[in-house]
């Protein structure tokens, strides 16, 4: 098991390295005269040359990449070209905002999707019909459109919720939960409908397996078959579904934060993208990839624990 985890961790690090290199070269090769962009049209050629030297842009790309890697390993991700704020600092203040929201939505998605999916698979009939229609509606409306609709109707028209959610946890848990509920709902609707749908088919697939019939023939009760055997076998598929939901949510949350004016990763990423503030963009990509690798590692470990074939070998 430990060897298995180490192997997964190693391949995660390789992915991190590959993605960082690809992103770095993609960003710096193609984005024209960076110094000119920062200084504006009024700058003289000397000023541009100086700025390029200051930013280290006069060195070969490969050298720059490895110096970025060396800095990154010591926790220094560079500084924004426009605000001069260290990227690591910006990330540190914004990640908690984004990740609390993502994790809150993720836990709710896991609970709701699993409940709905399992009930639909076991009960079938009208429950199943309702779930499937709900899934089609959920699939049809992008999360950010749901966010926009929620703000417009519940916050602006009816005034039930604050339209912007800039309240920090310090102002009391009630007010904070209240202000966060709309963005979290906007984040989780697609996840619940999509997740429930796939968990439903995973459970149905297990219920139709031969060994379930044999367990029944041995006199094992339906409840024990469902909870101990079927759900356990369907769990790896469910975990994979949920991890993909979480990865997708890292993108979706960017737009949701913009809609609700939340001081998370979203506004930082959008502003940096608009200005081609490359060190910040690099930082955002790195944070995302690290989250994805950690999540995938956790899913692999859980699956290994659930599946004796992985555990034993």
């Amino acid at each position, binding site marked *: 098991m430990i060897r298995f985890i180490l192997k997964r961790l190693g391949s995660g690090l390789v992915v991190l390295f590959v993605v960082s290199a690809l992103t770095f070269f993609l960003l710096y090769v193609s984005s024209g005269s960076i110094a000119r962009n920062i200084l504006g049209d009024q700058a003289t050629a000397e000023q541009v040359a100086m700025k390029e030297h200051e930013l280290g842009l006069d060195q070969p790309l490969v050298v720059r990449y490895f110096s970025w890697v060396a800095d990154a390993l010591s926790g220094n991700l560079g500084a924004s070209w426009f605000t001069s704020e260290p990227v690591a600092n910006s990330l540190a203040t914004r990640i908690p905002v984004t990740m609390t929201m993502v994790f809150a939505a993720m836990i709710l998605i896991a609970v709701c999707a699993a409940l709905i999916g399992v009930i639909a698979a076991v009960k079938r009939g009208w429950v199943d019909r309702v779930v499937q229609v709900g899934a089609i509606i959920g699939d049809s409306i992008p999360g950010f*459109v749901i966010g926009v609709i929620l703000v417009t109707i519940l916050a602006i028209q009816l005034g039930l919720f604050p339209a912007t959610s800039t309240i920090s946890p310090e102002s009391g848990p009630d007010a904070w939960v209240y202000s966060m509920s709309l963005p979290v709902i906007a984040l989780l609707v697609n996840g619940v409908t999509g997740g429930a749908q796939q968990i439903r088919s995973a459970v149905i697939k297990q219920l139709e397996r031969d060994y379930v019939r044999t367990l029944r023939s041995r006199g094992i009760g339906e409840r024990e078959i469902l909870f101990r055997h079927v759900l356990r076998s369907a769990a790896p598929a469910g975990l994979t579904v949920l991890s993909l939901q979480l990865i997708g949510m890292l993108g979706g949350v960017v737009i949701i934060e913009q809609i609700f004016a939340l001081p998370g990763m979203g506004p930082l990423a959008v502003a940096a993208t608009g200005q081609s503030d490359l060190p910040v963009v690099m930082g955002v990509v790195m944070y995302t990839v690290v989250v994805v690798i950690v999540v995938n590692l956790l899913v692999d470990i859980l699956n290994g624990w659930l599946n004796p074939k992985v555990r034993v070998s």
Partner: protein
Amino acid sequence: MSDSVETAAVAAPAPSLHPGQSGTVVRSTVVRRLLRNPLGIISLAILLAISLLAVLAPVLAPFQENYSNIAKTLAAPDSVNILGTDSAGRDVWSRLLFGAQLTLLSALLCAGVAIAIGLPAGLIAGYYGGKFEAVSNWAVGILMSLPGLIVLLTIRAAFGPSVWISMIAFGILISPSYFRLTRTAVQSVRNELYVDAARVSGLSDLSIIARHIFSVVRAPIIIQTAAIAGVAIAVQSGLEFLGLGDPTKATWGVMLSEGFKNVYLNPTLLFWPAFAMALTIGGLVLLGNAIRDALEDGEKIKHRKKAAKLKGTTAAPAAARLSRKSVAAVDAGTEHHLVKVTNLGVGYPQADGSIKKVVDDVSFHVDRGEILGIVGESGSGKSQTAFSILGLLPDNARIVAGSIQFDGNYTVAPGEERVDQARLSKLRGKRISYIPQEPMSNLDPAFTIGYQLVTPMVRVLGISKEEARKRALKLLTDVGIVNPERTFSAYPHEVSGGMAQRVLIAGAISCEPDLVIADEPTTALDVTVQADVLDLLRELQQRLNIGVILVTHNFGVVADLCDRVAVMQNGRLVEEGPVRDILRNPKERYTRTLLASMLEGKTPMSMLVSSQKEPVA
């Protein structure tokens, strides 16, 4: 019973169509089924209408997409601007039409790029495997672990705002879904006989791929494309909503963001782009679902045995209510039979409201210490009969006629539509048990063999785990396993098929049942192991004096083991009697045909025939 019952019972199994050989046949029926499904028609109509509006946008739109009338901003709908104007005085209807054009084109571009990369890569990886597959799997792993929007932000930062560049990038990012789908499909048909035949007959790899494999992946790719186009529209609009799209183009995302900025002044500006988006993506989602349904209906016809779950009819709750009342007593003089099946009929409700009978008017009985063989081809209804006795028919199955009694009590009384689970759950495991056909798939891979033997004994017999463990080890020894401790703590994937079948037999007799139903217990086994397992069954049956129903297609097994035999064909009982009589003097022509088709005792005609495999039921 209000359902009309097909009296013709069930015909011979529908010829299973090989997708590669009959692509056009399969496709035309799928298209017909799609058009018969209201959801299919609605989704196609929506998508067609939106595409037409998009194509005709330059003709239909009263204004240019960026024409603005500054004197008339945020205007309410009137005869000139039928949906009103936005904050810059631009016509909402015209921008919606041009937006449709760009949205659909970008979704097509994205799907096109994804197919252009994913399909050939999946074909090569699936067909040849090897290094190419390893490398592409690795690349797929990386692509799949990146959130689309973050990648598109990066692309935007590097290349500036362009719908086309971002959609090409998204196409690359999403190509793994086509890759995986194609690779899996190709791998599953690569070793099919008809592909081998094509290879032997000298077709080049290219034409094999084109002709056989492409027809298999075609339908899944259409379903996938509908889903991906929807995702592409959502992502592209999201990017534009963030203000990172091309500001010179009218798109739904830009319109939504524009509306959101003016939400306090005119919230209807939000409605139209959101509606257009939901309608388009919804149309794509519905289309995908409708095609999947159409394909699955086809599957149901091809594999009737795995008939999918149909919704319960109104008769079912009534039957359930009925069962809670006292059950009628069995006919006098029949109590001594261990099992008695009388005029049993089993059917499956069809989509058109009729019921397809798979078992029709079947009667037989089994006494203690007796082995009854039920023989017939696959599709003859012999397994369905066995599962009716066990109460393990699929949810949608109906008892359409007859009764079943076990040890003097009805498990299915005359007139009941379903097997009553409350009655059967007291018998299953304890008094009636089951030996399945396929050893490996009938053990839960996640639990040790010991656990799977011990738990039923603890639950059914109420003995302690320690005692159950001792009994399980004894049982494993009894069924001829040399090292019972090792097998006890092994997982199913760690033992051989023959061993697993012995474990299942041990499980079936563990609670000392009165009746064992064995469904083709030796079919999945090696020939040498088959004989051992049959010997074991006979020895156990004689020692414990149990009744056995042995379902098989093999008269050899029947002659070896059974006291009496029932021959089934197309759901009906053809002939029933002592094994000797029927083997020596079969009265029915079908029985003679079955007997004649046996290979035992015949002179081999040629190598080809004698090495032919027996058909697997």
